[in-house]
């Protein structure tokens, strides 16, 4: 791999075709993408463009039908077994019978860590997402935004190199979403993780990312990759700047080109 050492994710000619009763569905077609260490990459596109599928391929939740995928220098499967990534789903997916602390503890139990280590990681990661004091609460006692923060703490507790996030704030209202976006950027700056983030919100993608991957459907493919030169340290105010609007415009154009409204 030599000079590619800083690439945390490499996809080469990746394709995934689902066989359905209505014939094959080309969920992903000829995906080529490198994600460098410490990057924040967003996949954006309309429904059916394969953005979630691509994330699931990286996570070894789907197996590509052609091409190669490398995660953290390993195959996707090996990376999963090495617990190289933490996955945050669209819904918080907290286990309702576990308290918040016990939910964060879940992956740590699976990893077989000892109790002291588990407790230390629970404390650290709940503090990181500002949920200290909610250890003993059950998920239903928390708001949607807090639940999703708990699920981020759970993903981070594994201490993975990569954070894979599948529209984590899609179900939340815009005010909460803005707030969590800001929190997530701080978290990213603090932890230096590589983040791959799926969204269908243009402002969210532009605000968060160092690179925006614009995808288009039928077959699911990468239409454009847009580099952002916005500073790493951003606040929500940046959304009023011409640079931000320019980037948003490019993403919107890319989405329009790649999508046929028929």
């Amino acid at each position, binding site marked *: 791999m030599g000079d590619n050492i800083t690439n945390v994710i490499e996809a080469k000619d990746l394709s995934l075709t689902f066989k359905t009763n209505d014939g094959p569905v080309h969920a992903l077609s000829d995906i080529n993408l490198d994600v460098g260490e410490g990057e924040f990459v967003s996949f954006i596109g309309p429904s059916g463009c394969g953005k979630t599928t691509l994330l699931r391929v990286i*996570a*070894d*939740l789907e197996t590509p039908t052609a091409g190669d995928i490398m995660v953290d220098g390993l195959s996707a499967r090996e990376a*999963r*077994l090495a*617990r190289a*990534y*933490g*996955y945050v*789903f669209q*819904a918080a*997916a907290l*286990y*309702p*019978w*576990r*308290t918040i602390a016990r939910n964060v503890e*879940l*992956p740590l*139990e*699976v*990893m077989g860590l000892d109790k002291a280590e588990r407790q230390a990681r629970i404390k650290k990661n709940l503090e990181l997402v*500002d*949920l200290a004091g*909610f250890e003993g*609460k*059950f*998920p*239903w*006692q*928390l*708001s*949607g*935004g*807090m639940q999703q*923060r708990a699920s981020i703490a759970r993903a981070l507790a*594994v201490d993975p190199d990569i954070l894979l996030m599948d529209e984590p704030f899609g179900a939340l209202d815009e*005010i*909460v979403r803005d*707030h*969590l976006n800001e*929190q997530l950027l701080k978290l990213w700056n603090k932890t230096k993780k590589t983040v791959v983030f799926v969204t269908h919100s243009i402002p969210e993608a532009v605000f968060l990312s160092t690179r925006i991957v614009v995808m288009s459907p039928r077959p699911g493919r990468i239409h454009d990759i847009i580099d952002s030169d916005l500073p790493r340290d951003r606040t929500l105010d940046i959304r009023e700047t011409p640079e931000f609007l320019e980037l948003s415009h490019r993403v919107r154009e890319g989405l329009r080109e790649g999508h046929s409204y028929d």
Partner: protein
Amino acid sequence: MTDGLVVTSPVPSSRLKDGYSRTMPVVVVTAVIIAVWYLATIFLNTPFQKDIYLRGNNTSWTTSQLISDTMSQKRPVLPAPHQVIAEIYKTTVLKKITSKRSLIYHSWVTLSSTLVGFLIGSVLGILLAVGIVHSRTLDKSLMPWIISSQTIPILAVAPMIIVVLNAIGIQGLLPKAFISTYLSFFPITVGMVKGLRSPRVLHLDLMHTYSATRWQVFWKLRWPSSLPYLFASMKIAIAIAMVGAIVGELPTGAVAGLGARLLAGSYYGQTIQIWSALVMAAFLAGSLVALVGIANNYVNKRMGVTS
């Protein structure tokens, strides 16, 4: 972080009203049942009572006398509730527990084989469900047999089980318990297959991202997800385990147990004895179901389930 308020459970407006609204329907239904029972007693026992009057050349009976006489026959077609209660009182409080005439003794005989059968049935039911959920082969090969096992009338199978087990030297409590097991494992298996398959795809995917073993997925996800189904199944299973134990007592020559009381009662036309055994069986079954309910509530509370 202030993006959400902590939700607290609503405080009931009045505990008193809550308790009232809970007990009231039960009281009303019980009163209706007892009233209907008394009416049926009068109606069903009248022909025989008139027969007695006729044979005794008693022609001067009044309606009120008839009504009171229908409720004090020795072997009525349908005993009145107070006759049954008097019989239960006589055979529980007034008899020593060690006596063969004590209803508590007979209840205990039935209860013990019910509980043993239910426990074996629960374990068997859960094990079968675990096997079925984890193996396609077991799913395909076992399920038809499990279902057909329940299509055979238990009354036909029970004597066979008793006889076969007796032939290999198993006697006493276990054969009856096995009949309870035979009936009670089924709802547990069906419920648990559904319960163990109930986790959402998202929750399973999460475990997959942790590279959890099947064992870990089972204990940390499938098992807790299945508990509501387990308790619902156990409520059915424990009630029919009692039916199994009673049925199992019928072909054993009416030695002991509520089933034996039923059989002996019907041999000698002791309808009051039959009904007192029936009421006792209903009471025991109801109590057992309530116990499962209490266990369910305890587990729910620990698992943070509301309402």
